């Protein structure tokens, strides 16, 4: 171990080009097969797929609940369900969509799959923790499903006290379910932060990190800081019901507005957990399908962090009529406007990326365009709600319902669908029918606007939320809205159809069907079990379309694909040595 050896230890590594194998025989889906292999996998790709199946399932359930709500609202009084059933249905629709679909969808389903690939890593930092976080999600889901069948919950997904502390039903079961689920979110965020910091391939400096990863990074920061506060809030609510600890229930000496502060301290950043990963996807898709370098890389990257930071300071805009001080309302309103600015900057940057690009309107790009339009509407209506005087009129009306569906569904779900359709070939090695995908997109777009545009008008006219009965003047709006929901539903069924068809009989995909420069496309479709058969070396930014494709396929050969020799043999050897 002398100096001679240390100079001799400076190795020269050979950087070569590694073209991805087309139509590989072996890949992550057909290696390690069988139910047990899947249930005990630590492969981030398989875990991502298990999450994907779960969130798709919950989106379906949540969607069915939505159709039930909209069908009931066809007539002003009872249509086919009683008020207490209706109240449980809208509670479940919100809780399932938010906690079991939106929060995990991009980070846990798509993010788990793509993050290591985009970093050139072989997996996330803690693969076993990753699997654990999936099972925690499942356990949380089981608690919630149990709640549905053992008394139901009719508090609204927001669980405001004192109603939630005193009403009957299985509130504790559901709060415990969401409490458990929160840990899944926290552990995913933890994993991503460490992976992005520690497992980047040579050459991936912070200024060459794909914007998708900047998005996931900012999201992970929010997840680890905000979710624990939800956890303690739900724990306190559970204890309130179980032991009557009394900090939120005025009958026991507590304060119900304190509950609201606690709850929204998480739940506002939660909406950024939902949308910021979507922003990341949009950057990838727009750049790839415009085949042009992203405009304003640092502006987009840092705006995600700005949104994450400011997003923690605006929770009181949910409480302008609740009884907080005027000063607090003022500050929250101001910061709410501020958080809209970085978001607006992103929209302009994306449009500028398209300018003079070479645009191929494939399905992922079509969803990105739909996102730009619908999310902008959601954003502007958010500005409307941030204005104090106007919010007094609009709070707790259908205007708010329409606003958050425009940002959550028109924004987040469209971005998720863009990502799903973008990375589908990488996940499954198959293509889907562009024709049916575009039809479905069109139906979803039309149905969505039919459902939610009238709700802005209803809300501004005074229609309150969470109403089972309503006054006659709103009936035509409700009926139009319900028709839209069914059109959307048809669009989603068609989507399920062509995606299933793709899995079974789709055309095989090439390694890089979109001609992207991003790293995940420089390996085969479906991805290999260990992602890359070499260590990727990055010399360009992820959106440098002016550089030739070959420069994005460089790497260093690794022996044993990263495994370090026969571990078990050396272990036994060392044991005998010790004896």
């Amino acid at each position, binding site marked *: 171990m002398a100096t001679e050896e240390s100079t001799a230890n400076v190795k020269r590594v050979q950087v070569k080009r590694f073209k991805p194998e087309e139509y590989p025989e072996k890949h992550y889906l057909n290696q390690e097969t069988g139910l047990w292999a899947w249930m005990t996998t630590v492969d981030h790709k398989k875990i991502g797929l298990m999450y994907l199946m779960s969130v798709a399932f919950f989106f379906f359930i949540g969607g069915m609940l939505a159709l039930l709500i909209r069908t009931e609202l066809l007539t002003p009084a009872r249509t086919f369900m009683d008020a207490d059933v209706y109240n449980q249905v809208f509670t479940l629709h919100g809780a399932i969509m938010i906690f079991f679909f939106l929060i995990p969808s991009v980070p846990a389903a798509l993010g788990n799959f793509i993050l290591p690939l985009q970093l050139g890593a072989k997996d996330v930092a803690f693969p076993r923790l990753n699997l654990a976080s999936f099972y925690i999600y499942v356990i949380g889901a089981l608690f919630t499903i149990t709640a549905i069948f053992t008394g139901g919950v009719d508090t609204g997904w927001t669980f405001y006290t004192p109603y939630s502390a005193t009403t009957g039903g299985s509130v504790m079961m559901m709060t415990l379910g969401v409490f458990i689920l929160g840990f899944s979110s926290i552990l995913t965020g933890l994993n991503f932060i460490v992976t992005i910091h520690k*497992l980047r391939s040579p050459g991936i400096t912070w200024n060459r990190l794909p914007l998708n990863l900047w998005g996931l990074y900012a999201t992970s920061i929010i997840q680890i800081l905000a979710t624990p506060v939800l956890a303690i809030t739900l724990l306190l609510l559970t204890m309130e019901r179980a032991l009557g600890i009394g900090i939120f229930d005025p009958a026991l000496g507590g304060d119900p507005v304190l509950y609201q502060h606690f709850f929204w301290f998480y739940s506002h950043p939660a909406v950024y957990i939902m949308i910021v990963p979507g922003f990341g996807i949009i950057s990838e898709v727009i750049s790839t399908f415009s085949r042009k370098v992203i405009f304003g890389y640092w502006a987009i990257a840092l705006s995600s962090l700005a949104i994450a930071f400011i997003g923690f300071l605006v929770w009181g805009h949910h409480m302008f009529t609740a009884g907080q001080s005027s000063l607090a309302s003022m500050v929250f309103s101001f910061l709410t406007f501020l958080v809209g600015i970085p978001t607006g900057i992103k929209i302009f940057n994306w449009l500028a990326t398209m300018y003079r690009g070479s645009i191929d309107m494939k399905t992922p790009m079509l969803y990105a365009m739909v996102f730009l339009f619908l999310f902008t509407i959601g954003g502007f209506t958010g500005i409307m709600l941030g204005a104090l005087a106007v919010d007094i009129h609009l709070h707790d009306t259908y205007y708010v319902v329409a606003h958050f569906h425009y940002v959550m569904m028109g924004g987040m779900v469209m971005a998720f669908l863009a990502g799903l359709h973008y990375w589908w070939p990488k996940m499954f090695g198959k293509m889907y029918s562009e024709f049916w995908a575009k039809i479905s997109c069109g139906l979803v777009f039309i149905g969505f606007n039919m459902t939610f545009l009238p709700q802005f008008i209803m809300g501004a006219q005074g229609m309150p939320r969470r109403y089972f009965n309503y006054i006659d003047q709103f009936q035509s709006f409700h009926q139009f809205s319900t028709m839209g929901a069914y059109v959307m539903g048809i669009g989603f069924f068609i989507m399920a159809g062509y995606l299933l068809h793709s899995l079974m009989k789709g055309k095989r995909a090439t390694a890089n069907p979109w001609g992207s420069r991003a790293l995940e496309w420089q390996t085969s479709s479906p991805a290999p079990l260990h992602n890359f058969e070499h260590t990727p070396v990055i010399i360009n930014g992820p959106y440098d379309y002016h550089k030739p494709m070959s420069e994005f396929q460089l790497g260093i050969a690794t022996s044993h694909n990263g*495994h370090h020799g026969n571990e078990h043999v050396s272990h036994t050897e060392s044991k005998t040595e010790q004896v």
Partner: protein
Amino acid sequence: MSETSVVEEKKSHLLHHFVDSDQQFEASKMGMWVFLVTEILFFGGLFAAYIVYRAWYPDLYLQASEELDTFWGAVNTAVLIGSSLTVAMAIRSAQLNQIKGLIINLYITIGLAFTFMVIKYFEYAHKFEKGILPGSYYNYEGIAHEKANIFFSIYYMMTGLHGIHVLIGIGLMIWLVVKAKKNVLHSGYYTPVEITGLYWHLVDVIWIFLFPLLYLID
């Protein structure tokens, strides 16, 4: 000889997605630090509730705090600080490949943690006898304040949640003892000891905040 075997043992703990042991160790430490941040936010909610109610009812806090046994609280503080010292010594032992020392220090830490829980048990039992129970079970007449139940609800939530974390720490350290006895831990690989130590230090720090805020305000 021994160097080679250490190097090879090192490799046996290396997971395939890490380039080398250092990267794995650094990643594990970072992961634990991130987790500790989440724990701070988790307890933070309770501290926020404490602050809010203390701002509203300062007299209540002064009065109610007198029911807490400052002496035994201080003993517990010393016990926990001591256990942080011994867990740090356990890490040092592992770094120096002194497995016996590692196991002994872990046992002492477990012993101290256990002592903490025993003292807590007696504190709680004494309170329960007087009728100072959490939530709507509170029926103690000794404090002339209508919100007395709230102070104790917060007390039980904070110390209860902390106690659960102490129990988890004890479990982790027993697991470390088992691993150490199986020769899994050594100077080339002591990550579990390092990150358990980090966790334990946080449990200690949280108590160092709880103690004065609950016990020392009278």
